[in-house]
């Protein structure tokens, strides 16, 4: 173990500082075409007409791909996790978010490709659009998705991710106070310095080489293979050099569309997104709406939590059901709350489909939990550090989904923070450890939740 703790140079450091690191945009292949997309100008509309003939006739245009060119149009990227597909690679009968790709043009240069996208004839019948997750259940809400306004395919075809633990009614009855709060973090765009990009090269052997900026090379390879209905061994993916991803380059579809254009044109095709497209059309971290109500005692125990989460998945499911599942498992954050009533909905809206960004599903609830615990401390008049230390996860405490913590670092972390800001902790609190609860730290209401540490 010579490397651990040693100060090692980055293996790509010299390439970075000499400008030799080769990003997808830096790959040079002969005979390459540039691609531009026609994207929906409306949030929600039916496509009444889509005619690419005039655009295809423009000098310098070599291929235009639409939904008709996609062997398998709809593919669920997480079918292996039981999440069925719902999103067409390119729009067919309708568009459900502004910026949704409808067609890709491959031409000799970017300007020609752009002009050709403007020459594609399209008629759209505008439909009402849904933007507010809180209105998704209104009787007169626009319908954003063919499954309804929220995801209905959790296990046993449930339309909600539920966690039920202990006896929430008893917790609320026995509480000295109920502290409620609503938390609504906004969407965040990852803003990688490198925008989305793919370069697809058809090989004489019939295979495709795809240069990709994906964060998940094998995953994206599977996606391309599925849409093209090709065996994996016909694809060669080149990647791993990513100019920033942060979660925004996992649900990439640029590879598949570029691949189809390359096959149709018989020439390499590069699709490089503009910074405007990156901001307006690439998937972001989702906006979340979280309502928390904690049943608390005067002396600072959190007996129970009722929580409702509305996650804004945007127009299609992508990975949102997985994100909400993770979110549900962590909805008590760093604290042990024995009685739980959690409902999480993956709500569809007419916005760009959302995705991961650094801590998919968990950053939102960590934020909400920390804000809420501070609020509880304020309402009770208890020191916020003491409240946290009392309720902090310890060895043997169980998570919302019943997993016993083996080595939670909550206690030392909070003590560390108190030390760093010079906040004096009274005697007992400064000496607390992460060890399994006992004595005063194991009141009756926490006994049942203690689990067996098995690993």
């Amino acid at each position, binding site marked *: 173990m010579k490397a651990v703790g040693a100060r090692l140079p980055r293996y790509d450091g010299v390439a970075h500082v*000499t400008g*030799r690191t080769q*990003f997808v*945009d830096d790959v040079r292949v002969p005979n390459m075409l540039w691609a531009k997309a026609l994207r929906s100008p409306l949030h929600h509309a039916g496509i009444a007409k889509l005619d690419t003939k005039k655009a295809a006739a423009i000098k310098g245009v070599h291929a235009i791909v639409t939904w008709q060119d996609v062997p398998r149009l709809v593919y669920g990227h997480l079918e292996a996790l039981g999440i069925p597909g719902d999103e067409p690679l390119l729009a067919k009968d309708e568009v459900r978010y502004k910026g949704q790709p409808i067609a890709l043009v491959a031409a000799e240069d970017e300007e020609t490709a752009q002009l050709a996208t403007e020459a594609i004839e399209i008629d759209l019948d505008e439909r009402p659009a849904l933007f507010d997750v809180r209105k998704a259940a209104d009787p007169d809400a626009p319908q954003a998705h063919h499954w309804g306004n929220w995801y209905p395919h959790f296990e046993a075809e449930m339309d909600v991710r539920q966690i039920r633990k202990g006896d929430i009614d008893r917790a609320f009855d026995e509480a000295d106070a109920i502290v409620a709060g609503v938390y609504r973090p906004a969407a965040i765009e990852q803003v990688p*310095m490198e925008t989305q990009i793919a370069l697809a090269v058809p090989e004489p052997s019939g295979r495709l080489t795809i240069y990709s900026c994906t964060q998940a090379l094998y995953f994206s390879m599977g996606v391309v293979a599925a849409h093209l209905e090709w065996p994996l061994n016909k694809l060669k993916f080149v990647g791993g050099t990513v100019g920033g991803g942060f979660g925004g380059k996992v649900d990439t579809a640029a590879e598949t569309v570029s691949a189809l254009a390359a096959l149709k044109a018989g020439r390499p095709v590069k699709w490089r997104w503009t910074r405007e497209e990156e901001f307006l059309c690439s998937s972001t971290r989702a906006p979340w709406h979280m309502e928390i109500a904690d049943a608390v005692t005067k002396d600072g125990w959190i007996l129970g939590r009722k929580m409702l989460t509305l996650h804004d998945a945007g127009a299609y499911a992508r990975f949102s059901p997985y994100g909400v599942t993770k979110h549900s498992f962590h909805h008590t954050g760093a604290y042990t709350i024995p009685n739980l009533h959690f409902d999480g909905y993956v709500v569809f809206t007419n916005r760009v489909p959302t995705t991961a960004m650094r801590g998919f599903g968990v950053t939102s609830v960590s934020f909400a939990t920390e804000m809420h615990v501070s609020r509880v401390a304020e309402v009770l008049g208890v020191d916020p550090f003491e409240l946290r230390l009392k309720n902090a996860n310890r060895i043997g405490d169980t998570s919302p989904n019943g997993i016993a913590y083996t080595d939670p670092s909550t206690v030392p972390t909070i003590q560390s923070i108190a030390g760093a800001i010079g906040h004096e902790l009274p005697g007992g609190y400064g000496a607390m450890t992460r060890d399994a609860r006992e004595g005063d730290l194991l009141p009756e209401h926490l006994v049942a939740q203690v689990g067996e540490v098995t690993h």
Partner: protein
Amino acid sequence: MKLTVNGIDHEVESHALRPLLHVLREEVGITSPKAGCQQGGCGTCTVLVDGEPRRSCLLPLAAVDGAAITTVEGLGTPEQLGPVQAAFHEHYGSQCGYCTPGFLLATHALIGRSPKAGRSEIEEALAGHVCRCTGYVKIVEAVEAAVGGAS
């Protein structure tokens, strides 16, 4: 038009208003300046024009007729890193590497005009460069080390 890049003359045929970024990347074949935003807002396209840092995505080719362009390749090679490059490498001032060429050139120019630059001058000089990976701390450390090395 003649374009001199890192001391080598190139005869280029691009349109007079084609952005220098495109000319460098597509016609001359120098890919270290990047198309991060193509609006002058991120700094990844920065090159030196007669030693001064400029946004190549905003510069029309006509504006650099007769000028000497320097890209990061002109600061040093893998076999022989320039002092700014060495400082960034040693201080981990780079993660994905996309913003790095721009930062290096801006730093090189800063040290040239202000060899004893302090932190606030460093921050002002680099204020137009965005990095989404490092959080800037290691970049500033690298620049301070490079300044320390120069003075």
